[in-house]
């Protein structure tokens, strides 16, 4: 994973980049449309309404678009449901050949395809999530990479949950024991154990990203087994949230602020804020840096945010513990995947 210093440099470049954009815009004004609209295309495995990974990125794009001045300033195209890699590869190539400035491959499975498409379009920037590989080793210079450190928020939410729990039992349910979900779950468990070594963290996986019904049953099982604080990952957790709501449990969300779904149940969510990364990629591109940077969403660079539900009161001392955890993660004294002594 990249060190915090790298990220810091990138953050500064974001600021510089903004100036570059302004310059371009200024010089371009008299000339008939040289480069007035920045065109972004994103290819996603799930849908833009998945309440998770894809939606958070798409909404990030919309936010940046708004900031930049609407569709005139930035055009967004997307291909969703591209779980099939050759389809995604076709989409990537297509967008690039249509002259999109930034083409985002929002799925780790797209890497191979991307490494084959990118060299053919040196004037296009590509981005690959979630990964840290920009293919520079293969001599490819126009690919950005990004990923989220899901375990960081997991750790913090685990801390809060452990401290809030009355039963001392926490229920965690994930889809498949891998990737982002596993990092989040492991972080959550580590945070909980660190906050209260006696807490019992129960973990289950449903083996599917979309099995809403089984995810609900998993939550039901956790609650029957005594859990009062629940969390989970993937778009299928919506079912689990309903169970928590109906049975008086509390829920912690990730990837997306899930408060709206159950305002009396969701305590806090780890929210992915991709806007910083998106803006930086745009600005790098406009500054002539076509790729080569690997981003991670962290607390430190503001990509990860803990969004509390204002309707649910979290005791001040617990909030303080959470803040301490965030601080510890930011300054490197806490490893969010390890149980603190």
């Amino acid at each position, binding site marked *: 994973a990249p060190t915090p210093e790298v990220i810091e440099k990138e953050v500064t470049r974001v600021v510089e980049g903004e100036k570059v954009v302004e310059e371009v815009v200024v010089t371009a004004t008299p000339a008939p449309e040289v480069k007035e609209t920045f065109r972004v295309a994103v290819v996603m495995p799930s849908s833009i309404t998945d309440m998770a990974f894809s939606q958070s990125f798409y909404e990030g794009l919309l936010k940046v678009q708004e900031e930049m001045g609407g569709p005139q300033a930035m055009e967004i195209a997307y291909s969703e449901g591209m779980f099939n890699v050759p389809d995604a590869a076709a989409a990537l190539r297509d967008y690039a050949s249509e002259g999109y400035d930034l083409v985002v491959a929002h799925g780790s499975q797209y890497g191979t395809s991307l490494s084959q498409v990118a060299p053919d379009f040196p004037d296009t920037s590509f981005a690959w999530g979630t990964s840290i590989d920009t293919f520079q080793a293969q001599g490819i210079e126009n690919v950005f990479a990004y990923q989220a450190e899901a375990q960081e928020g997991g750790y913090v939410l685990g801390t809060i949950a452990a401290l809030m729990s009355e039963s001392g039992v926490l229920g965690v349910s994930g889809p498949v024991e891998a990737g982002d979900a596993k990092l989040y779950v492991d972080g959550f468990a580590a945070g909980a154990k660190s906050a209260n070594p006696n807490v019992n963290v129960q*973990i289950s996986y449903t083996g*599917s990203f*979309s099995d*809403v*019904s089984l995810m609900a*049953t*998993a939550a039901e099982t956790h609650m029957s*087994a005594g859990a009062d604080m629940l969390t989970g990952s993937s778009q299928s957790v919506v079912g689990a949230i309903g169970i928590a709501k109906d049975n008086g449990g509390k829920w912690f969300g990730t990837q997306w602020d899930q408060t709206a779904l159950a305002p009396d149940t969701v305590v806090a969510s780890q929210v992915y804020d991709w806007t910083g990364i998106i803006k930086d990629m745009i600005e790098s591109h406009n500054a002539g840096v076509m790729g080569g940077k690997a981003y991670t969403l962290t607390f430190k660079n503001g990509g990860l945010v803990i969004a509390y539900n204002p309707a649910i009161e979290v005791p001040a001392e617990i909030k303080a513990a959470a803040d301490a955890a965030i601080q510890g993660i930011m300054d490197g004294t806490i490893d969010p995947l390890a149980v603190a002594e």
Partner: protein
Amino acid sequence: MSNLFTLPVLLGILYSGIRLATPYLYAAIGETFAQRSGVLNLGVEGIMLMGAYTGFLVAQKSGNLWLGLLAAAATGLLMGLMMAVVSVTLQAEQGISGIGLQLFGLGLSTLLYKKTLGGVESITGFQPIKIPLLGDLPYVGDVLFRHNLLVYGAFLLVPVAAFILNKTTFGLKVRAVGQNPQAADTLGVNVTRIRYTTVMIGGTLAGIAGASLSIALINLFQENMTNGMGFIAVALVYFGSWRPLGVLGGALLFSFVNALQLWVQVLGIPLPSDIAVMMPYLLTIFALAVSVNRTSKPAALTKPFQRGES
């Protein structure tokens, strides 16, 4: 790590298993009618999704769960009608038309969901009803007799379906049409009408199966929320040897093992999660392999009827 064989765990499995089995029961009992008359409807999955969607949408917009249920049933009925036109009247290959219907239902429900709802929202669904007296029984009272109406409905459907199939003139016609439509035809039984009816019953129940998820058990709609349940339901009909009681057995076995494997995980019993998730599928095959009671399948299953051919 705790023991799996404690009363609370067993009661928990019972409770969750009953809930998990609910959508399978509606869909598989409905499919039993269709298959008993000789029509294989592989499109149950698509109908369930459409039922889940319309049930949720109408319940949410009208604030009336019964209207939602009605809408889901009506949607299922319509999609069943579609399947019947294609596979009974137009005599299309049933395996493929089912897959077509499944794709259509998946696509349309998602499209409509995006256009009308745009995101996941939840509603308050059918609430648990305690059955007087029985609900107060120690231990099992909570587990067996505090469910919502659609759960009770699913289990009530089993004897009702068995009764209809075995004790009514309609049921006799259904069984005859599925075994030997030519013979039924010569006795003045309208084969086409019987098949339309059963496929539409199957569709209606599949629609309700979807609604049982979206307005009674999970109380929200999400794209592809059935996640292959429709196909499992079809498999359960085979498991149950085309008898409602057999289907009940299959649905309960599958659901109980699913609930059990979650408990295995929750209790921290060291078994890889993926292997745990496999258990219901493995055990269902295993149970069928070792069971002895095998009613033969409806002889005319998947075979379109044409008068005069023998």
